[in-house]
């Protein structure tokens, strides 16, 4: 139902590309895993069988440099170990990072501007060669090559003097800001304090790549595995079959259980078919899961009456908000009363229904989703109730000089795959009609939509938007949207309000220096609440993720980072 986009502050756009690269996660409401098997689950005896993964999104990229993931993704994380990784636990604990290749979460120094990591012992690639800190450095350098673009842009921003680096093919001397004094140690020098660095280090760009095996753009045909599985066959956009990596050792990797002997991923399926197959569960489908298809209305409607099916759902929350974005540079949205009127007029019931109902979306009046890891603080400055307050909206419009109503255009995506399509747009259209606002809908194809809305010169006055966290923290949620220095004129901009408030910018810099998560959370929450008063966005709903899994699947527990069960910990036995 939902493709899984993740976002970047600086340059890049949405990537739904890779099969896996799912969303990241954060403290989950932790309802998942009531299957009860979680408690009885023993990772020691779970080995065996073949896991089937049925996905919609094509597996079009498998190069760790090119994948855009949150927390290392679901499928990529089976192949690539990274310096740190998500903690893979339900609830709030799961929203934290944990050491992976590294021995710990890193040692900050110089006011969180320098981060030092040491690699564990006995780490090997699938061919048996040992993993060194140079391999990690090389993996990061590759991701700067233009022909391997696609990953998150943070490193380019954060590393000292790295923004002009063109990758190891053109500049074999490498990035000065990364030091590898010995094969076990790697040191990162940042241009500014970044308390979130251990969370960023979960990305696949932090996976080691052996220089000797690098074949450039062809590397993805068989990326060298450092994780529990390796590629057996890979057919772009169709199938990816994984088998055990003999040189991976569970001793160095307590978080990945690696239960199934084989994992077969099939892409390009219709969402309805995926859900039907998992629900029906005949034959191999009893061992099936999906990493990109939330449950459809057919199965949702059955959950109440079908206890067998109800046992086979995982309910989590990926921290993401769907909202209306204003461009205050465009009339009439320069007038805060118009923005407020629209905030009052929206009908969050129909909006939530458009997304599939309260089972998969929760009405939201805050920009930050209701998760502690992000620093959520409740507020509702323009109370619209469940179904909108058109009277108050009309009043404000009259004050703003539109006593006879208003005609505006709403930009949205052409299809409903990202929940930014016609369904939500028509719900908004219908709700605003009650307040005397006539909405003209303007759909664009996915790519065209990002292109139009991401360029300040062409940005429409009002558009449907979605924002998800690259990792469970308030920073990646608020910075790209509200930091004035993140406005990008050439395209790929996400600060759609084009807000450049020195006070806000300064507060962001201040929070970034904090390395204590609890402290930072409180400050992010306060910043969100303050920004909310300006009515630069109309938050509509936050995301709930309900995934089905097959009859034989055990330990399908949604983690707190991404709200989704973790393939590295699922068993089919």
């Amino acid at each position, binding site marked *: 139902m939902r493709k899984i986009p993740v976002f970047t502050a600086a340059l890049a756009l949405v990537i739904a590309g890779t099969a896996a690269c799912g969303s990241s996660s954060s403290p989950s409401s932790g309802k998942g895993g009531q299957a009860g098997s979680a408690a009885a689950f023993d990772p020691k005896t779970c080995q065996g069988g073949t896991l089937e993964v049925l996905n919609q999104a094509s597996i079009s990229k498998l190069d760790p440099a090119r994948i855009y993931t949150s927390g290392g993704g679901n499928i990529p994380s089976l192949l690539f170990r990274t310096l740190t990784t998500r903690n893979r636990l339900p609830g709030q604990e799961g929203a934290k990072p944990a050491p992976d290749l590294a021995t710990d979460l890193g040692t900050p120094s110089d006011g969180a501007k320098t981060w030092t990591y040491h690699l564990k012992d006995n780490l090997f690639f699938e061919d048996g060669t040992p993993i060194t800190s140079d391999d990690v450095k090389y993996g990061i350098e590759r991701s700067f090559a233009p022909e391997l673009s696609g990953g998150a842009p943070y490193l380019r921003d954060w590393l000292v003097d790295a923004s002009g680096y063109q990758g190891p093919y053109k500049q074999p001397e490498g990035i000065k800001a990364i030091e590898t004094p010995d094969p076990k140690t790697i040191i990162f020098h940042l241009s500014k304090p970044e308390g979130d660095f251990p969370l960023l280090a979960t990305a696949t760009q932090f996976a080691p790549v052996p220089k000797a095996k690098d074949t450039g753009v062809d590397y993805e045909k068989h990326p060298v595995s450092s994780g529990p599985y390796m590629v057996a066959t890979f057919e772009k956009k169709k199938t990816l079959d994984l088998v055990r990596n003999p040189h991976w050792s569970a001793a160095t990797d307590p978080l990945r259980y690696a239960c199934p002997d084989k994992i077969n991923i099939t892409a390009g399926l219709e969402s309805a078919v995926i859900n039907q197959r998992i629900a029906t569960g005949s034959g191999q489908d009893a061992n099936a899961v999906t990493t990109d298809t939330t449950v459809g*209305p057919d199965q*949702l409607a059955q959950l109440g009456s079908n206890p067998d099916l109800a046992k086979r759902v995982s309910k989590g929350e990926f921290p993401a908000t769907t909202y209306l974005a204003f461009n205050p540079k465009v009339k009439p949205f320069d007038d805060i009363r118009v923005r407020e009127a629209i905030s009052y007029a929206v009908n969050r*019931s*129909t909006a939530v*229904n458009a997304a599939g*109902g309260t*089972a998969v979306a929760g009405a939201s009046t805050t920009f930050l989703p209701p998760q502690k890891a992000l620093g959520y603080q409740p507020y509702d400055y323009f109370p619209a109730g469940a179904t909108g307050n058109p009277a108050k909206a009309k009043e404000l419009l009259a004050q703003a000089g539109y006593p006879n109503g208003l005609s505006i255009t709403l930009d949205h995506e052409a299809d409903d795959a990202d929940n930014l399509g*016609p*369904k939500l747009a028509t719900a908004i259209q219908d709700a605003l009609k009650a307040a005397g606002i006539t909405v003209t809908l*303007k759909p664009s194809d996915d790519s065209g939509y990002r292109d139009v809305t991401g360029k300040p010169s062409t940005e429409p006055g009002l558009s449907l938007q979605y924002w998800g966290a690259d990792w469970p923290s308030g920073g990646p949620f608020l910075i790209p949207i509200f930091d004035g220095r993140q406005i990008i004129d050439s395209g790929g901009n996400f600060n759609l309000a084009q807000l450049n408030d020195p006070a806000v910018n300064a507060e962001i810099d201040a929070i970034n220096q904090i390395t204590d998560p609890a402290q930072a959370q409180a400050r992010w929450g306060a910043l969100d609440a303050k920004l909310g008063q300006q009515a630069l966005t109309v938050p509509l709903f936050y995301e709930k993720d309900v995934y089905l899994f097959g009859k034989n699947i055990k330990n399908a527990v949604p983690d707190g980072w991404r709200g989704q069960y973790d393939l590295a910990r699922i068993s089919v036995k």
Partner: protein
Amino acid sequence: MTQTVLTEEAAADPGPSSPPLPRAALWRRLRHDKAAATGLVIIAVMVLVAVFAPVLTALEGQDPTTQHSELVDSAVGTPLGAHGGISGSHWLGVEPQTGRDLFARLVYGARISLGIAFGATAIQVLIGVSIGIAAGLGGRLVDSALGRLTDLSLAFPYVLFAIGLMAIVPDSIPRPLVLAVVIALVAWGGTARLARGQTLSLKTRDYVAAAKLSGAPPLRVARREILPGLVTPVLTYAALLVPSNMIAEAGLSFLGVGIRPPTPSWGQMLSQGTTWFRPDVLYVLVPGGALFVTLLAFTLLADGVRRILDPKNTEVAP
């Protein structure tokens, strides 16, 4: 979309030598042909429904775009109440998720489905007949150029090209118009081929020579001698084109490149309905049934006309 193929069959059989049937006689026989008459009545009803959609929805007291979140289950979006929420104020129930009135959407959807089907057919016939006559009456060069053009249009993978075209047409043009034009543009070849074949056959008739001898200029020959001879075969063919265009519209809307929301179209409703088959079967049955019945009506009519006009009238095997 094998449906596109069947129109070829009709094109291959111009059946030129049948004596003309006066319109009145055709009408009389049509009324006595049970199947064709049924088709005609259904089409008439559908057209009336489409034309009077605002009146009908006003009678019901609903409109096709107002969302009723109170009428659907807030958790999963299924309509509340039995049979998709059928009630005195919502005659066919409501749409899942949005709670929009299904009857209102159905009757407004008829406007789109029928309008585009008729519109596309009209454009197709216009293009096809013009090109066909020009090719048939023009010289060797004109004929071979237009013949190639026709081959080309027939060679275009129908659906693929329509999808491709829909993707690049700017949004400023009204969508139904775009759809009608695109459908017509990718499928005028059959009509052109039929019209050309018919023209070539009529051209050799001596009465065309006689008209030339009477001093008739070429345009008069085309209008007075050729065009009337095309009316019957082209109309018969067009009767088959209408349902095939309707399927094309439904298919494109189904694929999400057709009509844009909130404007209702049957194909689009069906495409939404596929995920609701079990929780709300009515949501599939209503637009699906309407589409099926209308298509069947057109096919019955076209078949009836063909049967009546067929000089051999091979209803029963010898």
